[in-house]
């Protein structure tokens, strides 16, 4: 199959068109199989924004997957086609070029609009009136979750002056601030099902990322900044929290649990934490 051009001894080429076509076909089929059967996939979504995000992802996968299949197939196909005398002098075609541009722009922007609508639904609404406030603090390599206690007020913190992890005050709550007396600090995020939670995200050393896959939630915690983000867990259960922003050598093990309880169980948990005295 190797031919050498007599005038140009260094040009060697074997007709690999069929082999390339079949390889691209194989790559496409295996990829589609992987995504269709998906032995590894999203954990079940259990928050108010899960359904929207999952739906948008699957819609994206269908549209872009179709373009992927078409692209790889066409690439293989043009190589298989027999050489054409007619097309050989073609230098392009503005009508074709413009049609394709408009078509692909419509697909991409339609899709972009749908995504922007979803983003505004998730991000541009204030938390519900009865939302539970929890402060999240990322530190190397531990998450802390603080509840305001019965007074509904967080105590003032100053980590540089008061942070004593070994004395049970890792966040540096001001011991002289009465608002902080009943604050509850936990290393797992305990929430009631069906109630909006307004997270107040902070970090004391470097940037961390609060990632709760089952809640379809991710937000960086940035030192010097207070970020608000809210979601509503819908289903009781225990789920994992990971750190998604590189924060140092222990990044991979900066794990925590989120426990979603029924409203009654949650009240009992709060009371038990108050009783144990913080």
């Amino acid at each position, binding site marked *: 199959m190797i031919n050498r051009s007599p005038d140009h001894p260094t040009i060697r080429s074997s007709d690999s068109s069929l082999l390339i076509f079949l390889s691209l076909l194989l790559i496409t089929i295996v990829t589609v199989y992987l995504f269709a059967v998906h032995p590894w996939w999203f954990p079940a979504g259990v928050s108010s924004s899960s359904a929207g995000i999952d739906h948008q992802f699957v819609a994206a996968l269908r549209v872009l997957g179709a373009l992927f299949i078409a692209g790889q197939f066409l690439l293989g196909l043009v190589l298989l086609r027999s050489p054409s005398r007619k*097309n050989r002098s073609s230098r392009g075609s503005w009508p074709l070029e413009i049609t394709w541009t408009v078509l692909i722009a419509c697909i991409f922007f339609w899709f972009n609009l749908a995504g922007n609508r979803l983003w505004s639904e998730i991000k541009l609404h204030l938390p519900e009136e009865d939302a539970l406030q929890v402060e999240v603090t990322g530190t190397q390599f531990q998450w802390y979750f603080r509840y305001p206690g019965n007074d509904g007020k967080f105590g003032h913190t100053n980590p540089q002056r008061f942070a004593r992890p070994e004395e049970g005050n890792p966040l540096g709550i001001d011991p002289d601030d009465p608002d902080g007396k009943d604050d509850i600090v936990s290393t797992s995020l305990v929430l009631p099902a069906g109630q909006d939670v307004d997270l107040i995200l902070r970090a004391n050393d470097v940037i961390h990322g609060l990632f709760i896959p089952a809640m379809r939630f991710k937000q960086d915690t940035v030192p010097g900044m207070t970020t608000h983000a809210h979601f509503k867990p819908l289903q009781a259960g225990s789920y994992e929290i990971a750190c998604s922003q590189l924060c*140092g050598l*222990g990044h991979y093990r900066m794990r925590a649990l989120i426990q979603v309880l029924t409203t009654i169980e949650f009240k009992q948990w709060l009371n038990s934490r108050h009783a144990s005295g913080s």
Partner: protein
Amino acid sequence: MQRPTPITTEIASRRRLFSTDHKVVGLQYFFLSLAAVLVGMMLSLLMRIHIIWPKATIPLLGEIKPENYLAYLTMHGTLMIFFVLSTAPQNGFGNYFLPLQLGASEMAFPRLNMAGFWITLLSFLVLLAAFFVPGGASLAGWTQYSPLSAIASAGPGQGLGTDLWLLSIALFCLASILSAINFITTTLKLRGRGMTLMRMPLTCWTWFVTAILTLLAFSVLLSAAIMLLLDRNAGTSFFVPSGLVVSGSPVEHAGGSPLLWQHLFWFFGHPEVYIAILPGMGMTSHLLSVFSRKPVFGYKAMVGATIAIGVLGFSVWGHHMFVSGMNPYAGFAFSTLTTAIAVPSAIKTFNWLGTLWGGHFRFTVPFLFSIGFVSLFISGGLTGPMLAQPALDIYLHDTYFVVAHFHLIMAMAGVFAIFAATYFWFPKMFGRAMNHRLGVLHFWFTLLGAYSTFMPMHLLGIAGNPRRYSELTGAQYVAALAPLHKFITLAAIITIGAQFLFLANFFWSMFKGAPAGENPWQCTTLEWRLSSPPQHGFGNNLPVVHHGPYEYGSAEWNGTAAQEDFLMQDAPANP
């Protein structure tokens, strides 16, 4: 514009090492990239091994600790992005072939060019030196987010290792700016007679646009790197806020903003990915036409798309920051602009298929790698519009889904273009051809290996595996992904092994390859007018250009029956 060429060529032949000859400088950049890619590749091998066998003992290195893994990760990213993808296609091939393809006798500023290379080499050595200082290399990733990068006590490698990283990058920026000025001036002022802008090969167009991006983007990174160096060593607080406690000690900084670093970094960082891939796009357009024996389909649309990507490339950086704490309203703008940049990319893909349509193919190794480029560009590109959506980024950001995306579209497609260009221009650079059979074997292993390594990473991301995890032992759902990680490591080992086919072929062919002759691929562009390797450039016989760069396949030229199926750019206007 005429230049006194004999002087420069004389200097070139007298002094090979400290040469201002653009061909020597180009080769020096190329071999620097080759060294960098070998180190970067070995680091990726160590990382893949550590992920699935965290307790494995590596010869000479011992057991890899989590901080070692992160240092490898930082160095892998830095080497690959700066010293390979931004160096080989632009400064390597660009320096060698831009003047030749334009019909110029030299680059506009030969001494600046030489300085650029030696500063880049210094930058490379400073970067590698970080491995050998106390604490080792920086572990903050190639993005060096502050405060992790700003405070020495934030981890091993965040001391001297990070200062060296910043110094290295500052030097690299400086060299890149010098080189970019040279490319821009050469393209605008030194084109040969008759070489109008719209007669330039698409390779030259992409080198030109890339140089403009480099000038603007690297200037910003240079400032940011100096600011961060000042934060670390001179007591300023550009990027560090007040009230921090790191490793149990209060930090004496106040008033800075960690997000400011991210904005500056990504204002550089996103154009940077186009700096890495645009020359590859140009080479692919060029080679698809050469080996289909057909003109480029939609040359003007290709030029327009290249410029559009360059312009839009500067307005999309915020898509790296959707969950960073940036105002969510900014998400709409960055999402829409990012979607817009997918359109010129789609135009390019369309035109590549159009160029191939009805072609008379010559399945040479550079052609195979160019086809691989298009396939990888489609696969990696189509996850772009997905990641451009802030709502989906809530889940996918900082997971392996992103790792899969940018490795396919930037790293793999970029490397395929570098391979294509190497196999293609090797005969011109060394006067000998590379071995065809070994090249074909190398292509197949690399194509299937690249897909086997990076396609499954999408599923890791969908399952929620965050990137930059040195071990799978943290979260339980991550531990459950071990089988897929094992497969990926296996695929990576095979792919990396196959690269020795290339190395063997490269060095064997340099000395033992078949002599190539002047124009072995039967191309139209001006570099193929010269002997292989070109001894003295065009000298005083500067070519006069009469034709476009992609005159392939016609049965007749200017009404005369053609002997060959191509027409050199400087062939007489009316034969």
